[in-house]
């Protein structure tokens, strides 16, 4: 009981410190850094939701890009000003229903999530009867169908011209706030009786069903909840980068999410979070390798896409040396934290050094 109270207090303190950090960064950091922080949060949501479907439920679904597109376009069309819409739709006019609506960010984003969830439900219902590779191919196909629809629905989505001038509402409060909500909801779900049913389905469908677990109900539950948050993340993305077109939601986006989640560790939300942040930061840090540079006398011309080559190599290394990802199935918890630090202190104490101040990673999820 003491421990639970202590952990609750520590979680609360961490959250307050983290909120303070967000407030400080929003006020002082330059837009470039802020954008990276926002992207970290958005990719955290993507990775956590993918983990819910693959890591916890064992369903290999590759529809993330499609659901993100639904959320992004919904939020974009609902938040843009009528004037901007008129400027955007110069080939063909926008459908009259959307021409004059302008919603605040929150309801637009929520509707984006709800529509993504509806699409997720409609796709998941038939597709989740499939298993393994077949499910992956089916959801990949559906994701592409959504994108192709968006290319061709000229009067709704402006086709391949995309949408420009989406209001930049996304800030670190929105993005990290919603990332924390996503982590919290996912954690609560996977730790509940429903979560045990999901894990049972992942480990052995036949045994789970023989114990009375309704397979399609639980798979669709995980899939729809995941789609909802993917839609939210899509909305955050649209209102962050302010310009979207169907190319943003190519399969490459899903590929990145899969890579991040595998690198972090299946069934570890801590892993997904850390990995999403590492990935986003690394990708920015590696930007120089794509412009011309020289190593001593050797001139290297800029190669676009070089970052992804390096990232792929890193991913390979992680898989070689940490077969189950950086975190495996482990999660951050205060008990684990104190165990580790006291072990560290004991070891340092023996060698006569002083223990370093423990650093707390603030993006960690809360523990009940």
């Amino acid at each position, binding site marked *: 009981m003491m421990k639970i109270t202590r952990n609750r207090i520590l979680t609360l303190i961490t959250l307050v410190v983290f909120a303070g950090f967000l407030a400080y960064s929003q006020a002082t950091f330059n837009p470039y850094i802020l954008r990276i922080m926002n992207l970290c949060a958005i990719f955290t949501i993507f990775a956590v939701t993918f983990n819910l479907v693959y890591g916890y439920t064992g369903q290999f679904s590759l529809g993330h890009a499609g659901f993100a597109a639904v959320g992004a376009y919904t939020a974009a069309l609902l938040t843009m000003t009528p004037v901007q819409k008129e400027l955007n739709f110069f080939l063909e006019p926008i459908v009259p229903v959307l021409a004059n609506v302008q919603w605040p960010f929150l309801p637009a984003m929520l509707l984006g999530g709800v529509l993504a969830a509806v699409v997720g439900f409609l796709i998941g219902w038939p597709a989740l009867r499939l298993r393994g590779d077949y499910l992956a191919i089916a959801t990949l196909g559906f994701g592409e169908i959504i994108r192709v629809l968006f290319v061709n629905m000229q009067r709704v989505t402006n086709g391949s011209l995309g949408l420009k001038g989406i209001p930049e509402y996304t800030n670190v409060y929105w993005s990290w706030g919603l990332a924390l909500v996503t982590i919290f909801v996912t954690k*609560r*779900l996977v730790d509940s009786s429903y979560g045990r*049913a999901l894990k*049972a389905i992942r480990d052995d469908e036949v045994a789970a069903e*023989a*114990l009375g677990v*309704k397979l399609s109900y639980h798979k669709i539950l995980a899939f729809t909840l995941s789609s909802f948050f993917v839609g939210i993340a899509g909305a955050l993305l649209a209102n962050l980068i302010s310009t979207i077109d169907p190319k943003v939601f190519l399969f490459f986006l899903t590929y990145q999410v899969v890579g991040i989640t595998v690198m972090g560790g299946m069934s570890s939300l801590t892993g997904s979070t850390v990995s999403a942040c590492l990935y986003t930061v690394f990708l920015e840090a590696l930007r120089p390798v794509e412009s011309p540079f020289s190593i001593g006398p050797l001139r290297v011309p800029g190669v676009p896409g070089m970052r992804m080559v390096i990232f792929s190599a890193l991913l390979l290394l992680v898989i070689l040396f940490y077969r189950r990802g950086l975190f495996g199935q482990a999660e951050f918890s205060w008990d684990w934290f104190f165990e580790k630090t006291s072990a560290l202190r004991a070891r340092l104490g023996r060698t006569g050094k002083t223990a370093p101040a423990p650093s707390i990673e603030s993006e960690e999820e809360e523990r009940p």
Partner: protein
Amino acid sequence: MSLLRLDGVTKCFGGLTAVNNFSTELAPGELCALIGPNGSGKTTIFNLITGIYTPTAGRITFNGTDITGKRPDIIASLGVARTFQNIRLFNGLDVLGNVLVGHHLRLRSDPFSAILRAPNYAREEKEMRQEAMELLGALSLDHLAHEDATSLPYGQQRKLEIARALATRPRLLLLDEPAAGMNPGESEELMRFIPHILDAFDLTIFLIEHQMRVVMGICPRIIAIDHGETIAEGPPEAIQNNPRVIEAYLGVGEYA
């Protein structure tokens, strides 16, 4: 009235008839064994009862309800539980977690109250955990509650699979080769354990077993099948001396 009734159940896989016109009845409280050589269709019969396969022909009735072709989870919720020939525990869950999955089908709270840990969910979860611990205690597995399910010794894993099946509160328990791979000591314990749970949990047990010592020792009634057809039925002594059973197991004697 019989608890389980199979009427002319047939299952064909393409040209192969795995189970042919199989009929039997199990009375409540009965402990009955199903024996037969490898590939004679025993596990197929279990898969037909639990809904993993749909019969090609015939009718299966459980407790007065027609369960022919129903989904496995529905049949489980009606009160049929089973274990598997090759142990199928959930390796991502601990011992307690495995048993709790068996409680899940009775959960009434919706997913949202579960996420919010609403009072109705919290109460159910607490009750569930209490019952699961009691069940583990009854099978003397409670000291292993937080171990990884697959780290248990073989005999304990078999027992855990039974515990998990019992958590669904079945009226009929199907045991598929519970003594497979057990050493003599472990199967000795199992021979005491099966009649014990039969009484303690008010069950009807239908079991497949290859170890004749176990079957003959505990089952008052035995059904022997070969090539998907019943070849003999009766008490252990009758089965032991039945020429068709001996033939099925050992082949026809040839004298030079």
